[in-house]
């Protein structure tokens, strides 16, 4: 292994995250600890086209992206833009074993299917409008 001969990178001032290792496929919990979705992809701010100036500011994470990515993971390619659902990075409160949000999951687009099923199907089942007794 060559890495033991490589230079040590400069120290970081904050938490270090490797996208593949620390973010992708992690579960996302809302403010109250309710699971919302998983991190399927990460959106970063645009990189300058062509040659990047030496002093260009690095891109930052703008959003956690979720969507039906199973097929693209297996076969490659990319989903149409409309199928991606984004949770802005400003809603993220911490990244540990799970990604925690500082907002309620109810307000997020990412959980619309669950809300739809609850409101249109579960609600119509007798006894489906109240907690189990």
């Amino acid at each position, binding site marked *: 292994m060559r890495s033991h001969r490589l230079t*040590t990178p400069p120290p*970081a001032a904050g938490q270090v995250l490797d996208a593949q290792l620390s973010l992708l496929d992690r579960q996302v919990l809302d403010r109250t600890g309710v699971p919302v979705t998983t991190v399927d992809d990460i959106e970063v701010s645009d990189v300058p086209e062509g040659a990047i100036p030496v002093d260009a500011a690095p891109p930052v*994470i703008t959003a956690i992206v979720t969507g039906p990515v199973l097929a693209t993971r297996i076969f490659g390619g990319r989903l149409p833009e409309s199928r991606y659902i984004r949770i802005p990075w400003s809603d993220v409160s911490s990244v540990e074993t799970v990604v925690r949000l500082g907002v309620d999951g109810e307000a997020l687009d990412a959980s619309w299917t669950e809300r739809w099923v609850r409101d249109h199907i579960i609600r119509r089942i007798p006894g489906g409008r109240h907690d189990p007794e």
Partner: protein
Amino acid sequence: MILSDLMGSRVEGSDGERLGTLIDVRFVIDGNPRQLLADARLEGIVVSPRSRASYLGYDRKDMNAPALIAHFLRRRHRGTFFVLWADIERVERGGVRLRSEFTAYDPRWSARVTG
């Protein structure tokens, strides 16, 4: 830009020589402070000259067990290095080009002190 557009990209030197494959992107949460968490700035990329697959974390931490798997993964990923954002000259779909005088850093997390 979506990160999966970048993962698995070919990484080449300034003369077009292939250096490896981009296997991970490293962020540091030390950007502009926000109400909950500061911005996560792209610090650099992890490049593996031999494998497109993930290193399962063995490259970032000094894990060595189970020994057989650790040995196999270290062999497959030998030569893996980390490059800072400042050393990236160009990012295009499917390819990243580094500057001519780029520095290859140790990709392990344990190689650095985080504050």
